């Protein structure tokens, strides 16, 4: 077993994490500073992109760069909490299933596994007048928990059944000790990669739901609502449609890149 992972996986994971971190940092900075405050009416509506407003302003007279920064924060936060809940529910369930029943299905594609269910749930919750943030949260979190269960089961099963774990147990190590020393280090990269996949999927679904009007409501600002508002003006100001979607897609792809890099690293060690 070689200790140094192949550089390709590590480079890929590193650049993915770096890109996602830069975007997240810009989003966080919006809490204390944006180029123009991002308040509606602070500038002329629908200004052309230029030196003053890098991406122009929208129909309410809000600087698009400032709006993008705060909208990314909203979208990322919603996606983050939905992912966290999915993992907190899914990983213990998946571990239990792996220990009791062994390996299940092979790894599923996370986004496609969640999106249809999330859309149907979003429509139901939207129709029931559920509070919109909660509705997005549940619509992503419920199918996300199932995806996390399936994913973590297939990650945990081979390690739990490994001979060296049984050997460690025979040698007198308790469940907790064996888990800490032999299971956690083996499964951690896989589980983190699963979490990153889920986060990317959750972000794209939040954008889709908010665009459809089932997510963050009129007063809130997320990447999806920016796209919804921009759709009417797409012909006159293409940037209002291109920019928010591009931010969402680039963030999601950076997270996916980090995830697949992590998996590659793992394969190199195992």
């Amino acid at each position, binding site marked *: 077993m070689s200790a140094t992972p192949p550089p390709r996986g590590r480079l890929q994971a590193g650049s993915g994490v770096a890109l996602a971190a830069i975007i997240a940092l810009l989003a966080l900075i919006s809490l204390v500073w944006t180029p123009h405050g991002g308040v509606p009416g602070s500038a002329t509506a629908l200004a052309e992109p230029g030196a003053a407003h890098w991406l122009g302003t929208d129909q309410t007279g809000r600087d698009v760069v400032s709006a993008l920064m705060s909208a990314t924060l909203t979208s990322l936060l919603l996606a983050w909490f939905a992912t966290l809940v999915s993992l907190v529910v899914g990983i213990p369930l998946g571990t239990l299933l792996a220990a009791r029943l062994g390996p299940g299905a092979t790894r599923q594609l996370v986004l496609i596994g969640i999106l249809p269910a999330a859309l149907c749930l979003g429509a139901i919750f939207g*129709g029931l007048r559920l509070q919109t943030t909660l509705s997005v949260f549940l619509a992503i979190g419920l199918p996300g928990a199932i995806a996390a269960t399936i994913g973590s089961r297939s990650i945990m099963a081979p390690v739990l059944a490994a001979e060296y774990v049984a050997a460690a147990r025979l040698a007198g190590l308790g469940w907790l000790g064996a888990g800490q020393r032999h299971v956690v280090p083996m499964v951690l990269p896989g589980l983190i990669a699963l979490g990153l996949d889920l986060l990317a999927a959750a972000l794209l679904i939040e954008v889709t739901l908010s665009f459809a009007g089932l997510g963050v409501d009129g007063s809130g600002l997320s990447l999806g609502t920016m796209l919804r508002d921009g759709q009417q003006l797409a012909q006159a100001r293409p940037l209002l449609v291109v920019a928010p979607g591009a931010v*969402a*897609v680039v963030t999601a792809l950076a997270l996916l890149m980090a995830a697949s890099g992590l998996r590659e690293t793992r394969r190199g060690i195992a």
Partner: protein
Amino acid sequence: MLVAVGRFAGVVAFSWLILFVLLHLLPNAGADVLAVQFPADRLAVTLPLVLMAGILALLLGAGISLLAARIGGAADRLLGGMATVLSHLPPFWLGLLLALMLAGMLPAGGFMPWSAGPSQALASLVLPALALGLPHAGEFAIRLRAAFGPEVEEAEIRALRIGGVTPERARWSISWNRALPNLPQLAGRLLATVLVGAVVVENVFYLPGLGRQVLGAALAHDLPALRASLFLLVVIAAVLMLLGTLGRLAVEWKSGALR
């Protein structure tokens, strides 16, 4: 063999159980479908859209994965990366972009009814079908590539080589036999996800389909209409998945895996 039969029976039973539970969770759902009047005119938009997008996704996805499996190596990785990117473009955003770029050439909003002539109706479905089909093509390519499995080993093709088959053909037929049982099921699942994905895409292009009815009812908090339309959507999706599972059963039966 019995295990395989049991697995299929389980899958079929499970999908019907879910339907049964859904029926009872949504009271009077069946009656509502009839009361709201069977939305034949909406299905006349949604089903052709799903079919067009589905065929595009199947052909393009199969093409990408066949190419990747055939060439292998760096091209395999590159095509896999392309498929991943494609599968993570939200269809509605792709629709917005396509409408921006191609609005002059193709109708980018609204629907010409079939009575006005099939060519115009089809033309108004081209951009939505592209928006819906391209991301699903990426997804289908990834799944089918996984079904082809890892590179065929020398030992596996030896028996075929002895029978006088060229190595190329032997490699090919082994990959193909690995993927074939999965194909109907993958196609069924693909069509089901395309159907649900159409909900948002129809809204981007102002198409009066079933998905637009679902979303409109949800936004208007019109619960009876929501129940009826969502029920119909889920039933059609479940039937598509069921057909896929039955297709797999048929393929495995024919190949003798079940006997």
